[in-house]
C-alpha cells in the first residue's frame, strides 16, 4: 500500500502492517530459514557493506517483533 506493507498470517488470521525495513527483513526470512547472523549477512550483501551497530540493533528488534507477532518461529539447529 502507499505507506506500509500489509501481510496476512494464514495461521493466526491476523493482518499486520510492516514498514519498508521490516518488509525487507521479512522477505529475507521468507526466502529460507535464517539465523539472526545470516539475516545480518544478507542485509550487508544487499547494502554492500558492514552494518553499523544501530542498524544491527534495528534488525534484532525487528526480528523480535516478528516473533511476538507470530510471523516467525524458531527452527531446529540441525
Amino acid at each position, binding site marked *: 500500500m502507499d505507506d*506500509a506493507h500489509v501481510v496476512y498470517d*494464514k495461521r493466526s*488470521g491476523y493482518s499486520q502492517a510492516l514498514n519498508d525495513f521490516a518488509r525487507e527483513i521479512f522477505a529475507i526470512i521468507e526466502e529460507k530459514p535464517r539465523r539472526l547472523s545470516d539475516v545480518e549477512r544478507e542485509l550487508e550483501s544487499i547494502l554492500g557493506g558492514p552494518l553499523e551497530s544501530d542498524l544491527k540493533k534495528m534488525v534484532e528488534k525487528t526480528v523480535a517483533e516478528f516473533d511476538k507477532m507470530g510471523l516467525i518461529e524458531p527452527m531446529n539447529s540441525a
Partner: protein
Amino acid sequence: MPPGKKCITDPDTITKNLSGKGLLLDIGPICTKVSIKFPSIREDFLHIYKGYPFLEGPAITDYYLEAYARNFYRRYMRPQVAINTYMRDDFIPLPDSMGLLSVEMSLNWQVAFGCKSHILFHAGVVEKNGVGVIIPAISGSGKSTLSAGLAYDGWRFFSDEFGMLDQNTGDLYPYPRPISLKNDSIAVMKAWVGNDEFFSREYHGTPKGTICYLRPPMASIAAMTEPAKPRVVIHPVFKRDAKPEIKTLTKTMAFFRLVRSSANYGDIGEPAFHALAKIAEDCISCEVTYSSLEEGIALVNKVVDEISDA
C-alpha cells in the same frame, strides 16, 4: 419485486402468515421467516415494512424469527415478548410495548452472528450513479442519520447497519431494512423527510434512549437486488460546532479501519483480507467531520463529485 420470485400482496394473507406459520421477508441476499404472535407488534412491523416483498412459499430461508409469549400469563398480564431465532440465542424478554425493537434487534443479531456468505461491515452503505459509498462507524456516531439523510436526498439506500460485500466479485449488496434512529436524530430526520408516515412510533426508555424506525425510500426497496461497486469509504465524525473537514486516509489506515469495522473478517479469513485490501487500494477513504446533517451530506457529495470529475 425480486426477479423470478412470487410475492404475496393480499393484506389478509400477509397478516395470517405473520401471525401463524411465518411470513417470508426477502431483503437483498437474506430471506427471513418471521412470525409474530402479538397483534400490536404485527401492526408496528407491517407499518415499517410496508412495500417490502413478502414471498409466497416455499423458499430457501436463511433465518427464522418468532416473537411470542413464553406462557399464558405473559401474553396478557404485563405482557412480555420473547424471541426465538433457533440459533442458540439468549435474549431477555422485553415488554410488548417494545416488541418491534425486539424483532429488529434480533434480525440484526442473526445477520451479525450468522452471515458468512458476505463480508459484513458495521456500516451504512449508499449508492449514486454507480458509486458505492461505505460509511463505517460505531453505534452512536451518526452513520444511520447520515445514511438516512443521503437516502432521502437522492441516494440509493443499501443499509444503515450492515455493509455486505461479495468476497468473490467485490460488489456491495443492498440489505435495506428500516433505519434505526436514536434520540436527537429522530427530530432531525422527521424534519428532513417531511412525512411522518414513513416513521414508526417512538420507543422511549430503551438502553440507548429513544428509538424510532424510518422506512427507506420505495425506490431503494425496489432496487434491493442490484449491487454496486464500492468507490468511496467515509468515516463520519459528528461533532457539534466542529469545523467541516475532509481528511484523506492512507491506504494502510483505510485497510485497518475496514478490518476493525468488519463483523466477520476473522471468520471468512484470507478472502476477506484480499477483498478489503482491494477496497483500500482502489477506493478513496477519508474521515469527514461535520456538525449538521446538511453539512455531512454536502461533504459526502463533495468527495464523490471529486472522484467523478477525476
